[in-house]
């Protein structure tokens, strides 16, 4: 059954207000397909009925479920390859030199989703930078969705998920097979702190970061929201730190405080020297 225009408008407004994500008219199919699963799980005969209930009874938790279903994005281990190559070849060697005295690194994944990005980072550090064993390395992973964060914390992935982007050598080295799923080993999981954070709301205090990744999330926001987020990123990033955006994202025409780092299609930026 097709989603009614009124139901779509309600979902669109709700998602926009809670997450800042803008759903264009042509995304009606996406709303319908994602919310069909929620409707089924919650015992509604249709998405329209689910949204009607969410509208008339705003406090029963359905609104949160609707927003979470619409804001979960696809991800994979070592997604896009190049950002991780930039980290391995350029960013981490540079930072390790610069932080040789303080022996501390802070990395923030701002759209961690189901955890593949922060875990890929943790694996990269373990695999290529044994020198960091004696350092204090903080990897903070945040996401809008509590449900998704719970999944991320468990570090358990299906076969389809570990097939994507992860080499078999790393799979054997850093995972355990648990029934039909694959779970990251405890010593990788404990490298990461997971916390809820909504990019469009006020951010809690966070330690200044050496590396910030907010990849494949700005594309969902309107121009003003993108500017606001980049402004906050600029204040949080240490002066010699690095920012990573997704392949389809840029700071151009949004914030002139960044310079692009030339490294393939890594989407890597540094603060412009004033």
């Amino acid at each position, binding site marked *: 059954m097709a989603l009614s225009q009124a139901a779509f408008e309600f979902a669109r407004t709700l998602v926009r207000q809670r997450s800042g994500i803008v759903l264009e008219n042509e995304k009606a199919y996406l709303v319908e397909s994602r919310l069909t699963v929620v409707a089924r799980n919650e015992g509604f005969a249709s998405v329209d009925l689910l949204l009607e209930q969410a509208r008339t009874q705003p406090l029963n938790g359905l609104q949160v479920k609707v927003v979470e279903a619409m804001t979960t994005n696809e991800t*994979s281990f*070592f997604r896009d*390859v190049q950002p991780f190559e930039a980290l391995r070849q350029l960013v981490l060697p540079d930072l390790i030199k610069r932080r040789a005295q303080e022996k501390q690194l802070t990395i923030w994944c701002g759209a961690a989703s189901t955890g593949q990005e922060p875990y890929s980072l943790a694996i990269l550090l373990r695999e290529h930078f044994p020198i960091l064993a004696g350092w204090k390395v903080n990897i903070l992973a945040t996401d809008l969705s509590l449900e998704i964060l719970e999944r991320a914390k468990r570090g358990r992935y299906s*076969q*389809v998920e*570990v*097939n*994507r*982007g992860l*080499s*078999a*050598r790393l*799979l*054997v080295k850093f*995972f*355990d*097979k648990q029934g039909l799923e694959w779970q990251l080993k405890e010593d990788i999981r404990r490298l990461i702190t997971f916390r809820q954070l909504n990019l469009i709301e006020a951010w809690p205090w966070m330690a200044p970061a050496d590396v910030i990744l907010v990849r494949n999330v700005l594309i969902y926001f309107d121009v003003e929201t993108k500017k606001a987020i980049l402004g906050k990123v600029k204040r949080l990033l240490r002066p010699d730190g690095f920012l990573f955006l997704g392949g389809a994202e840029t700071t151009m025409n949004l914030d002139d405080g960044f310079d692009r780092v030339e490294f393939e299609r890594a989407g890597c930026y540094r603060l412009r020297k004033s």
Partner: protein
Amino acid sequence: MRALVIDDSRAMRSILGKIMGELRYEVVEAVNGRHGLERLREIGKPDLVLVDWNMPEMNGLDFIRAVRADRAFQDLVIMMVTTETEMAQVAKALEAGATEYLMKPFTKDTIIEKLALLGVAPA
């Protein structure tokens, strides 16, 4: 770019052949490990080999071992594509000399991501 696809299932050879063709690979097929070795002798070194594990006459694991025993094929890129999904089996395939391992079922995107890891992705 040329790929050798070794699988006893005609359907699987057809699926892999179609995907690799779309990725602008020229595809050569073989129906088991022994046939795969013959093909290698005929065509020389391809850019990539996709090989199933369970096949009659010579399985994928024995194929990989035989290939690696030949100095000319030490650096041949071989990805095992199989329904075997236990950790011990993945480890065993790597130990035998597989460069990469892909568990069925897969999609075209999964193949593309693995090719990127292997450095043999189409331009």
